[in-house]
């Protein structure tokens, strides 16, 4: 049963990866290259001390970035499916509902919570901290994101047993509290001295929406694959029917 979940997760990852790979190829790659050039042409000097002669060609960057995007989605799909296997009994909702709850928790953990301190940076950003420190902060924030997700799901379960709508309100409390506290407490550690604010916002929105889309596609695909498998085996009652053999 664990293997069925993992297989569906990787399949869903391939579906999301195709979408995200196309997005990388036709939107994110050209836009990132453009922003990179726009700032270099201004006689831009990278303030952070590694005005590198690029180690690889632009074509390599474009191809590897698309490949990384596909691999990223497959990786998230695998992690998502394993987490779904273990946590499904504790998640609110049935089937598709619980998959989307977990996908939301995944987005909150992997992306949204870390972004409150380390927002997505457009090419050419000036960073206040070293990369080692930022990666350490990132790991800490992923752990915090997981705690916040657990708190949101926990408070939903606690309140929703009495009143369903109040449960949804209760679930947003830990999320909103974290967002408010972190965004007021955290210092601004990334700046874009040579880019218009609107452009930076658009780039960040692109990053946020595309990551959220990956999670949405993963949840939808995993549920779709599961439904398809249960209907295709529905006529065969016996050892092939996963539900009759599951412990």
């Amino acid at each position, binding site marked *: 049963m664990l293997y069925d979940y993992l297989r569906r997760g990787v399949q869903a990852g391939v579906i999301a990866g195709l979408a995200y790979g196309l997005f990388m190829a036709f939107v994110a790659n050209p836009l990132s290259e453009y922003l990179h050039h726009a700032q270099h042409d201004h006689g831009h000097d990278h303030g952070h001390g590694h005005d590198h002669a690029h180690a690889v060609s632009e074509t390599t*960057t474009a191809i590897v*970035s698309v490949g990384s995007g596909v*691999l*990223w989605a497959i990786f998230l799909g695998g*992690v998502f499916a394993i987490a779904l296997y*273990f946590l*499904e*009994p504790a998640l609110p909702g049935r089937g598709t509902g619980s998959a989307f709850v977990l996908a939301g928790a995944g987005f909150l953990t992997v992306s949204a919570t870390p972004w409150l301190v*380390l927002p997505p940076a457009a090419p050419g950003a000036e960073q206040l901290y070293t990369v080692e420190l930022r990666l350490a902060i990132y790991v800490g924030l992923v752990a915090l994101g997981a705690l916040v997700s657990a708190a949101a799901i926990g408070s939903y379960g606690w309140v929703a047993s009495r009143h369903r709508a109040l449960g949804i309100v209760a679930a947003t409390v830990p999320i909103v509290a974290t967002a408010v506290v972190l965004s007021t407490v955290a210092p601004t550690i990334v700046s874009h001295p040579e880019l218009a604010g609107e452009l930076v916002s658009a780039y960040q929105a692109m990053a946020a929406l595309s990551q959220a889309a990956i999670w949405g596609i993963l949840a939808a695909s995993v549920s779709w694959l599961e439904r398809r498998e249960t209907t295709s085996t529905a006529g065969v009652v016996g050892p092939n029917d996963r539900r009759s053999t599951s*412990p």
Partner: protein
Amino acid sequence: MSEETVTDRIDAARAVLTPIQAATGLTFAAGIAFVLVFLQDPLAHDAMHNFRHAAGITCH
């Protein structure tokens, strides 16, 4: 089905996975995460540059 708990799922996983298999899977996942998110080698960094920016992964 509805009475299933997280503990049941863990027990079921224990029944089908050896510790070696579980460790292999975790190592594999950690390897992918390390390469995509943490690896700062200039070659890897520059090659994945657009992806890391667009996915909001901290780099440089």
